[in-house]
């Protein structure tokens, strides 16, 4: 397991896949490979990546390695019963940038979340539909452009119209992270992918307690 974690942290996808296959051949169950391997690696990267010392490239490399291993074990995604929680993520309509969103998706999948990724340029209704359909605990939006702010502000009332007032709203991305939660009418604004993931961890843990 140590070798899997080390190769994941180094972002070496091929070596990580070999290590994971070796564990599987030795009879280690998929669930343990995910929880003790992938999640541990992501937690160690999380500890290293503070708001002051965080860059997308390093996280992308770890995320890619984690995704490669996770996809082999769960080709259709993490089953609901194994996931930490389900979240929906997307870039709001009017924003076709998705690098930040993809990083968050990789980090959350690495931490054991079931992530429904709607991609970019997502209308408010599509985001809310997915939350309802997937019974998601949270809706995450990432925006590089300031022009999406009015659409982000429409999410809370749109969720409320469907009776989804319990769903947490998290925003991030280069433009949105300059705003306060009050300005965006969301529960939290994340400065980095890990910052958002930590907040989500705390919310999920509170709701399970």
């Amino acid at each position, binding site marked *: 397991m140590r070798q899997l974690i080390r190769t994941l942290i180094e972002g070496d996808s091929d070596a990580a896949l070999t290590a994971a296959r070796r564990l599987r051949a030795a009879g280690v169950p998929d669930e343990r490979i995910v929880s003790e391997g992938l999640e541990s690696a992501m937690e160690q990267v999380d500890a290293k990546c503070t708001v002051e010392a965080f860059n997308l490239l390093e996280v992308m490399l770890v995320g890619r390695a984690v995704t490669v291993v996770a996809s082999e074990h769960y080709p259709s995604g993490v089953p609901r019963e194994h996931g930490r929680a389900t979240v929906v993520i997307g870039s709001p309509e009017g924003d076709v940038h998705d690098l930040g969103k993809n990083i968050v998706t990789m980090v959350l999948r690495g931490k054991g979340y079931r992530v429904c990724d709607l991609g970019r340029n997502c209308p408010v209704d599509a985001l809310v539909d997915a939350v309802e359909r997937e019974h998601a605990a949270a809706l995450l939006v990432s925006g590089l452009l300031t*022009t999406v*702010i009015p659409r982000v502000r429409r999410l809370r009332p749109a969720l409320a119209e469907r009776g989804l007032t319990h769903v947490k709203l998290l925003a991030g991305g*280069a433009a949105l992270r300059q705003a306060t939660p009050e300005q965006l009418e969301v529960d939290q604004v994340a400065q980095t992918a890990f910052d958002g993931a930590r907040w989500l961890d705390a919310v999920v843990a509170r709701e399970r307690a």
Partner: protein
Amino acid sequence: MNSLERVAATLRFAKADRTPVIPQVFAHAAVRAGVPIVDYLHDGALLAHCQIEARREYGYDAVFAFMDTALEAEAMGCRLEFPEGQYPDVTACALSPDTPIGELAPPDPRRDGRLPELLRATGLLRSELDGEAPVVAVVLGPMSLAGQLMGTETALYLAVDEPERFEELLDLTTEVARRHGQALLSAGAQVAVVFEPAASPVVVPAAFFRELLAPRIAALFAAYKAAGALATWLHVAGDVTPILPYYERTGADIVNLDYEVDPDEAGRILPHACLDGNVRSLAFVLDVADEVAAEGRRLVARLAGRGGFILSSGCEIPPEARPENIAALVSAVRGRS
């Protein structure tokens, strides 16, 4: 002092009549004039007109010859979409992960895409403002252009998986920036900005900037100086503190600081560079004018004493910014020497 004299004095760390103020007004100039952004981005004469009118109304110290960050990529074969009221998005990249880099050539600034329109805008701005205010041309940096040509995510993976091929791509994009910048300077621009958001330490490690990007940006700035640039200006988005120690080797005269950077620390690291910044861009959309003015006055009080300081936004002023907030920033430098 007029704006050109004020900026020139500030660049020399000499005494100016007041701190220069140069909010990064790009497509907001179109919105303010009631002009569709898509028209502004296709018509050099319209762009020049909107820039001149915006400066006249707000009273700041420079104009920008800049269309959008997809300009060079489009001229090299990327397909764009122009959503209403926004900058264009790349919908089809010119380079796939498997395309040989050598298949792509630098565009001709006088012929390809919208580049000739930007040259036209630059010439018109210079003839209108000659001797009065600097014309600032903006060129996309090598890393950011690589991201536009191939997709940022793909380009970043390429940097790790095939470093030699990635450097070949960076050499191509540096050559594009050199030719484009030199053409803009020949057309009348006096200051050349390398806009390089993808070089941010938020995106790539500091060593990546030091080894791969700083030498190429230095080569660009040397070429721009040789072409007669009054000043070179480096603009990297986000918290650039980890890479500031490498800025000196790029030869940048003006260093843009985004809102997350401590300008006092930047001044300590770069004692000879003119600093530019750093009011939060979103403040021009979400805050009230008094808050923007107060932030501007606070920055002037902190930094005007060092000499090389231009009050500005940390990054672009969003097109939908509140006009009164831009006016408030400009008001922050009035009555101070």
